[in-house]
């Protein structure tokens, strides 16, 4: 299973759930627009997934490798285990910083969350030097205060 296929499965599941949900108002609302669109995207998604899987198998057979069964693939597939897995781990790391930003904003204020987030992301994640990281955090926080708190009166 490649990361592309995982995304296709996500789209199929989402459309399946929306298709199922559309039965609640299929008769009464909007002449079944959600039903029709969800059904079309669901079928297209399934066809796309099948095409991608068959293309991947052909590619593996072509290079002299036996096609893997689905329960073997997830761990050893080159797409997930190599560069791709690293990339998604990086995305997850960035999102953990962003989740932290939301938590601090929710429980304290964005005026606290902004400098903390900026400093930690540039210094810790991006591995920039201490002084430039602190400078970016301070200058941007000042700018954010000016625009959002002072001009737009955002609380």
């Amino acid at each position, binding site marked *: 299973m490649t*990361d*592309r296929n995982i*995304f*296709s499965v996500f*789209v199929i599941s*989402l*459309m399946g759930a*929306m298709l199922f*949900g*559309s039965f*609640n*108002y299929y008769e*009464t*609302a*909007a*002449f079944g*627009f*959600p039903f029709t*669109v*969800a059904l*079309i*995207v669901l079928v*297209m*998604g399934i066809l*796309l997934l099948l095409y991608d899987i068959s293309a991947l198998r052909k590619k593996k057979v072509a290079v002299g490798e036996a096609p893997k069964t689905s329960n073997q693939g997830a761990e050893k597939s080159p797409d997930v285990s190599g560069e791709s897995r690293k*990339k998604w781990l*990086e*995305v997850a790391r*960035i*999102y953990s910083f*962003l989740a932290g*930003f*939301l938590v601090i*904003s*929710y429980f304290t204020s*964005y005026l606290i969350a*902004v400098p903390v*987030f*900026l400093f930690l*992301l*540039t210094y810790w*994640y*991006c591995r*920039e030097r201490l002084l*430039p990281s602190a400078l*970016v955090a301070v200058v*941007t926080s000042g700018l*954010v205060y000016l*625009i*959002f708190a002072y*001009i*737009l009166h*955002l*609380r």
Partner: protein
Amino acid sequence: MYDHILPALIIIFSWPGIAYLIAGTLVGMIFGILPGLGGAQVLALLLPLTFFLDHNYAIIVLIGAASAVPTAGSVAGILLNTPGTSQSVATTFDGYPLAQQGKAGYAIGAAATSSLFGALVGAMVLILILPLARPIVLAFSYPEYFMVSMMGLCLIALLGEGHIWKGIMSAGIGLMLAFVGSDPIEGLIRYGMGSDYLYDGIKLVPVMIGMFAISEALKLLLDKKSVAGERIEFGMKGVWQGAAAVFEHRGVFLRGSIVGTMIGIIPGVGGAVANLVAYGQAKATAKDSDSFGKGDIRGVIAPESANNAKDGGALVPTLIFGIPGSLDMAILIGALTTFGLTPGPRLIIDSPEIIMVLIGTLVCGNVIAGVLMLFCAPTLARITAVKSTFIAPIILVLALLGSYAADGHFGDMIVALIFGLVGYCFQAFGFSRVALIIALVLGGLIEKNFYQNFLVFGLEGFVNRPIALGLLVATVLMLVYPLMRSKFRGNKR
């Protein structure tokens, strides 16, 4: 229609209109110069900040920024061989070789001048076409609006970024997202999941911010490199000769501008295609085409005039039918909607002054960006030396706070984050972000017009009204033609 030109100019040039125009243009230029960031990102980030302004000033800020992006995008392309936006790709083919020959000033002068005058040509075509809009608009009713919306959506899915199949799927996903919330006919809540937040549907602003600003910031962070990568020593030598070269090669300039305007009119095609087609056209029609790719100034003039002229063209379907001609226009439609202005046919009839403010800003923004480029290109080019590891976190903060500022709702930040990831996946797996956003914009319109047509004309309204039938046939042909063509080619082989 033309009576409103002078009042519109007064709004733009009186205080604080002029300040907003200059500020918007400068922000647009910065985003244009930075590779990876473009019109969609600057509009998505600026949009929440304009909610507190009068709608005229908001339009001035947004259009001023969007109009400056393609002009500034050529700077990084010429100096670094890294186009600031996808709309400046073809400019690098001859712009960078010119810079390598020590003629960067010459290339930038030509790029700025052809951008400036290209935008004027696009705006002129738009102004000439607009009076024809009223009879077209009056001939349209629910079935025609439904069909034209469907046609726009199909065109965007077919011609936009990524594969056609995935383009259609992206548009479908966008439509499904548009169906979330209260249904326009009976007020029934769909896909609400018991959450008050979803009662009004999925909001456009956080989705746009996520899809374009957050996903691009993610990409920049993952790249973790300096935008420029090398130090640029650049002088202003030859800038004015470059400007003069545009007049010398006025045929190339005019053809590029016309190609750009025409491509802009087709919804969903965008500046990148205009830029490349104009370059190809200039090369194909040149008698001495061997010099192209080695530093021929015509290879800078043609694409640069096209990518600015396309903005005027893109405003034609946007203003006449409410069908966004490009991604920037889709975001603009979202912005107008948040100001209570319904883009499309009624806007031309009810508020022509807003249309004129929009066109006036497009022209003035391009003039300011062009002049600034001629005088300040070396200074502006230094922005590219800033590391993406400093730019991306700032974009993330501004994007999240911007989505929160729109309604003061914490849930908007979560939606923006979710769609940031969706946008990143869409890019990574070849789906079309443009099709999703435009479907989200048009979804309600399509559903409402379909229902109203059903009540007033019945289903036969789609076939017994000539314009609706013509649009239906054109839509079906558009969808079938690519499949037929590939099948025909397959049989031939």
